């Protein structure tokens, strides 16, 4: 084993030209990929661009393809990759703005589309909580852990071929609110997710669930959404 890592980073400069560039990073200076990138930026090449913020895998900034797989740079320990050569590219399925910075706006637009908030008809002054038992919380807890990093979108094969597909994170968010006992908005959300860009497109390949750094299971949420949509549809046909 060498005493340096070789970072091979896909660049895209201001003129739109793309190319790979290699940097040597001393092993004792870094343990995570983000620390490696910061080392490069601070010491070797001031022109490298990437997003990062919390460095504790909660803010969702630093998603990128590392060794061909979508991961968070801040929580990827380089040693765990079992290689001295680290290949880093921008997340797939997003437009690249520069270097490792991608256009995340379409992701948040889709997120907004599923009405990701509690919908009730008693909005106003609040002087008491809405009852929710720990069991009721656990109904949606898994889906509430999503950090909006967008890794699942990069892993989803449907997203790659059809950008109009809502995608795993927004669909999981739709289910997160439907499964919340405080919410009364299922029928509005189902209208969106049951449409032609919604759950019907999913092939249950499960890649989304596999790459999620927070253990969220969008694949399962999509199955639940399909069942709920059917139930709501039947109820409207049979009048209840």
């Amino acid at each position, binding site marked *: 084993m060498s005493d340096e890592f070789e970072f091979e980073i896909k660049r895209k*400069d*201001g003129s739109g030209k793309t190319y790979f560039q290699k940097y040597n990073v001393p092993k004792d200076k870094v343990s*995570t990929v983000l620390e490696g990138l910061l080392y490069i*930026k*601070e*010491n070797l*090449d*001031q*022109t*490298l*661009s*990437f*997003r*990062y*913020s*919390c*460095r*504790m*895998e*909660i*803010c*969702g*900034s630093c998603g990128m393809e590392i060794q061909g797989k979508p991961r968070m740079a801040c*929580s990827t*320990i380089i040693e765990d990759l079992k290689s001295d050569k680290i290949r880093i590219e921008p997340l797939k399925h997003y437009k690249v*703005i*520069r*270097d490792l*910075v991608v256009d*995340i706006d379409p992701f948040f637009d889709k*997120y*907004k589309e599923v009405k*990701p*908030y*509690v919908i*009730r008809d*008693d*909005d106003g*002054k*609040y*002087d*008491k*909580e*809405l*009852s*929710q*038992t*720990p069991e*009721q*919380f656990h109904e*949606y*807890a898994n889906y*509430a*852990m999503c*950090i*909006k990093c967008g890794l699942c979108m990069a892993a989803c094969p449907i997203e790659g071929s059809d950008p109009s597909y809502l995608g795993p994170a927004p669909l999981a968010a739709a289910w997160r*609110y439907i499964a*919340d006992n*405080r*919410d009364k908005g299922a029928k509005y959300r189902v209208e969106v997710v049951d449409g032609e860009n919604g759950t019907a497109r999913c092939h249950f390949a499960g890649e989304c669930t596999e790459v999620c750094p927070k253990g969220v299971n969008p694949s399962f949420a999509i199955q639940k959404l399909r069942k709920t949509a059917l139930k709501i549809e039947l109820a409207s046909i049979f009048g209840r």
Partner: protein
Amino acid sequence: MEKIKEDVIVLGGGMAGLRAAVAAAEYNKNISVGVVSKLYPLRSHSVSAEGGTSAVLNPKDSFDLHAYDTIKGSDYLADQDAVEEFVRLVPEQIYTTDHWGCPWSRNPDGTISQRDFGALSFPRATFAADKTGFHVMQTLFSRALRYENIHFYNEYFATSMFLDNGRMNSLTTINLRTGDFVVFQSKAFIFAAGGAGRLYQFSTYAHSVSGDGDAIAYRAGIPLKDMEFIQFHPTGLVPSGILITEGARADGGYLLNGENKRFMQAYAPNKLEKASRDVVSRAIMWEIEAGRGVKGEYGDMEYVWLDLRHMADVLDERLPMITEIAKKFNGIDAHTELIPVHPATHYTMGGIDSNVRTTTDYSGIFAAGENACVSIHGANRLGSNSTNECLALGNVAGVSAAKYAMEHDIPDLVVSNVENEEKRIWDDLLKRNGGENVAKIREDLRINMDKNVGIFRDENGLNTSLKNIKQLKERYNNISIQDKSSTFNMELEWALEVGFMLDIAEVITTGALLRKESRGAHYRKDYPNRDDENYLKHTIATYTKDGPRITYKPVVITKWQPTVRTY
């Protein structure tokens, strides 16, 4: 130069900023609200808040008790009228966010649960497991998406704001994606851009927290208050600095020194590990100074242990995030192994001189959250009193700004200001070619702050710090910017941030040098006692070309006379 007008502009998309934006947008749906942030809102540091948010919800608790704990915690530097008003504003915010979908942790009967926290005399920290900030932020961001009158300007880096006739005239920004210089104008303006903790090397803060909001206000002529008070959280994970929540100690975790002995008995015999953050942080540092730290596998930094092994059964339910963090970042199983911790910068008690109505001395300019100094935290903020401040005072700021906007117009733009600013960035800063590396200056600044303006301070160290900062400012004039691109130019962003940091470092150091006493988080080895006779007052720093001009302002005392503070 692009110009954008909004009725209300909020600088910052974190917890205080989002709460303010929602409040303003709700108050009047015809008011347009712009949220200007150098990040996407959910990337703000607020998502990192872990342990809890204090609120009087239980009939056995009381507003007076919450106020008293806060004031005692502040080492009597908080304005007591502000604290009394503040604690009454909080409960409604907990219920509001609950109705909006925040998964506050529950009792089996479905009511909101509360946990103990450092220096509280009643367990009033409302929490969402140990992801309180994360869940509140998700709730607020999603809620904000309901309002078409809220417009997000994500990844717009603010470079300065200009006042004219005592009112906000313009906010200048760089659209990081395009490199365009964008000028914002508004009727009302809210500062909600967070703290300044990344002036230090070892820190629980996100990388992004570089004191921009404080520096922009300061340079515009708005005074900063009590900036010398920097909070160190006792338990930053070694070596990354990632926060290990106070909830861990509140739920029963112990601190052990290098001899594997608990040591808090000697420093806070009643509260032990649950004493206030300044007390616990100093205790750890005294242990390390006495040679009872741990010299381990994480470089030069000595540390102590956090022991959670005896509470393995509750870790997954109540402390899932720190359990996950210990595993992912250090390969440590908190159920069976000790966690290495060292005090890390965690909160900026000081900020824009403002009050509990979130107003400043400048008409139409409001401040909320960590960017503001109300002052409710005085010399040391209690754990669990930050997120509630963002919610309660963010709400006040939003409503106040909306009301103000309804009664005022947007002032005419003073074009010369923004033209000069445009020149400063593109014709001066970007073209500098003196050979100095911005990141190296930043690193040297952080080393200086850790060493000379840290938990322990004295006259020599503070004078050295001032000298160092002056030298760093000279080096800053000789930077080179390699990256000349207009698209996502992070090097230019770093350069602007480091400029802000140097100014704020100077304010912190100067305030600390002149405060010849020890109070809360400010501990002077050469003046180890609190001196109410001379220093029961707020430090006010006003910008001048030659450095900060320091004046003082009295502390408001209502019903709690300062007494000796022990835990």
